[in-house]
């Protein structure tokens, strides 16, 4: 059988394609490496989910090799298994979108024109996108409606234009401490933004509303309120999903992909033929699959005759910080508000999305504020050390843990700024090391441009001032060059020039007629927000183009 479309990877990048095309009557198959879990399977089992990572592959079976480049050019090689350094995020139907927290931000118009607006930066491959914000805006709106984004539009100096005046779903319930935050922002003349969330506040779209389970990020959603790709899209379309299907190679002739090969759990190989192939296995794995798919027409890997596949890998730069609120400084009423579980602390600042320093214009970023994760084990483990950094034990430790957990709470912040693309940050394939399937593993070459740290630190300083104004203690931040494995993009950047990009502006490979890539690998620069809203929106945009192409063919 020949399918109209074969989608590889069922996460945020692949699912809009499957949803739109199968609902339009095309014959779509989705190949997904992981299992299918439903709402009934998802529980808040901290040991299984957060301590034993049941949703990601075992590193002894599947790993990455990581080569880290220091600022002085020194390279250090890490075996992911040996160092427990995992770049897996969620192997299951719906991908890592099942486990996301759903903090959603759109890119801003200037994110599409980074080079024109802010200029070139030495050592970085900054470029403009081949599309504009206006091209993506209708699809951001579509995601709000179809996937479900809740929030409240807050006007501020860097607010992006919208085609609708409000979000289709009202804001989620908030913890009262957000009012302390809003007051602090008022004093500091900042615009407190109610963070949009891919979470339904009440039943809609055939899904339940949020139950404020207190354990959102890293956990699957048992109500269906979270706008993950499975609940929001795959469950609502007719695409055929083949689970536990690890795609290891694509075949092609000179101009078209002809078939995809996958292994099932017993290592039996199967083949799928389709007219169009859409790859969305998350940035690193999509690049690896292309690089591993060599043939007489593509000696360096599929769509890689210009040696661009894997190049310009990016992450979200920035880091985290926190402050602690102690009962001693609060009234009994305030203590009660502080400790209220479940309801969200949805606040963000974008006052420094762009800023000036010594007469120079800088691209800044976003700061999200949220209570620290409710997982109890890491919160207790953090208390093991005394003020001199010595490990403690015995009764003194017991008391310290009890006091800290029951009479204080930590408010954290996350800084998101651009990870500048460069020649030193890219995906390759190891010549020797193979995974349990006998397929060569991906090599992640890491390099973080010093500019990213500078910007991140500027943002963190501002966030700390807000925590100070709120009356928090023990304020600290950690801006680092270490990449967040769950916020990864690039590697198959789109652009108008086939010599410097893998995909054209519709995310079709320049070198092949029927190969598309719709996870975050298309992004030449990442913007200063988490990516998922943009991944969904772009995938809906590509689906629209594909529909036009397929319909034309049908006629």
């Amino acid at each position, binding site marked *: 059988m020949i399918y109209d479309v074969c989608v590889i990877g069922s996460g945020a990048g692949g699912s809009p394609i499957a949803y739109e095309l199968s609902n339009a009557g095309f014959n779509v198959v989705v190949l997904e490496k992981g299992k299918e879990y439903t709402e009934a399977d998802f*529980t*808040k089992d*901290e040991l299984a989910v957060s301590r034993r990572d049941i949703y990601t592959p075992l590193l002894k079976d599947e790993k990455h090799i990581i080569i880290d480049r220091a600022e002085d050019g020194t390279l250090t090689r890490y075996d992911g298994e040996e160092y427990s350094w995992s770049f897996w995020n969620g192997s299951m139907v719906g991908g890592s979108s099942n486990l996301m927290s759903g903090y959603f931000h759109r890119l801003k118009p200037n994110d599409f024109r980074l080079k024109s607006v802010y200029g070139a930066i030495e050592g970085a491959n900054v470029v403009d996108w081949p599309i504009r914000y206006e091209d993506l805006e209708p699809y951001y709106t579509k995601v709000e409606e179809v996937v479900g984004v809740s929030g409240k539009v807050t006007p501020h100096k860097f607010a992006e234009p919208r085609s609708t005046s409000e979000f289709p779903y009202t804001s989620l319930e908030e913890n009262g401490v957000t009012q302390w935050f809003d007051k602090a922002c008022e004093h500091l003349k900042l615009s407190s933004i109610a963070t949009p969330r891919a979470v339904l506040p009440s039943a809609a779209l055939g899904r339940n509303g949020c139950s404020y389970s207190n354990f959102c990020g890293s956990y699957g959603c048992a109500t269906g309120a979270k706008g993950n790709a499975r609940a929001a899209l795959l469950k609502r379309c007719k695409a055929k999903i083949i689970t536990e299907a690890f795609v290891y190679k694509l075949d092609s002739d000179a101009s078209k992909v002809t078939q995809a090969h996958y292994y099932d759990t017993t290592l039996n190989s199967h083949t799928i033929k389709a007219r169009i192939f859409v790859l969305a296995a998350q940035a690193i794995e999509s690049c690896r699959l292309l690089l591993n798919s060599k043939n007489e027409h593509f000696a360096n890997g599929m769509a890689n005759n210009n040696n661009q596949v894997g190049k310009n890998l990016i992450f979200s730069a920035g880091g985290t910080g926190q402050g602690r609120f102690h009962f001693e400084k609060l009234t009994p009423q305030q203590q009660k508000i502080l400790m209220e579980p479940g309801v969200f602390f949805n606040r963000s600042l974008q006052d420094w999305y762009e800023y000036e320093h010594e007469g120079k214009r800088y691209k800044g970023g976003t700061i999200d504020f949220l209570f620290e994760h409710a997982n109890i084990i890491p919160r207790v483990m953090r208390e093991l050390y005394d003020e001199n950094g*010595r490990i403690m034990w015995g009764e003194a*430790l017991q008391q310290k843990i009890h006091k800290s*957990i029951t009479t204080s709470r930590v408010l954290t912040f996350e800084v998101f700024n651009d990870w500048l693309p460069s020649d030193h940050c890219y995906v390759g394939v190891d010549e020797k090391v193979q995974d349990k399937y006998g397929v060569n593993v991906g090599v992640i070459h890491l390099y973080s441009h010093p500019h990213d740290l500078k910007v991140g630190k500027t943002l963190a300083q501002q966030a700390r001032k807000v925590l100070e104004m709120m009356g928090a203690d023990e304020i600290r931040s950690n801006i680092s060059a270490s990449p967040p494995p769950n916020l990864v993009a690039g590697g198959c950047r789109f652009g108008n020039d086939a010599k410097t990009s893998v995909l054209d502006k519709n995310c079709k490979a320049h070198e092949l007629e029927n190969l598309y890539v719709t996870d975050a690998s298309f992004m030449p620069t990442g913007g200063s927000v988490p990516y998922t809203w943009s991944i969904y929106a772009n995938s809906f945009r590509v689906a629209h183009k594909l529909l036009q192409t397929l319909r034309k063919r049908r006629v």
Partner: protein
Amino acid sequence: MFLQSRRHFFQKGFVGGAVLVFCSGRLFGAVSTMQTIQVLQEDLFGNTTNAPTPQEVRAQSYLAMILQHSRVSQKQKEFIRNGIQWLNEEALEMFHKSYVALAKQQREAVLQSVTDSRWGESFVHAIFAYLFEAMLGDPIYGINTDESGWKWLQHHPGLPRPKKAVL
């Protein structure tokens, strides 16, 4: 509930067995790993009426079970086993007895001494990690008896809670 079904392991698993310890280069003999762990957990967490004890939350059997799990790396398993051996060797160097045979004050001195080294600190950190997993994980795993760990810290677990043990 996997603790019950895997009881047999306590007799033959590597944590259930013994480690050979040496003192000044000479073989001292075999030391029971489970006994060392039990005493060590009590020493590390303390035994007060304010909080559950490691024994009450079945931290010892949990450690034995989890160190059999495919999702705990071989490296980690070996590290715990070696740690038990090193701890006993330090006890022998300092007081000529195995860790469990020492008086409370002597064990305290051994802990002070081992945590001065990197391995010792990492070892104690790892023992705490599994101890708090037993105290604060879901009781479906035969641990955190009567939710006593959660009650101690007034912790609200996330909902829905697991209906079956998946580890």
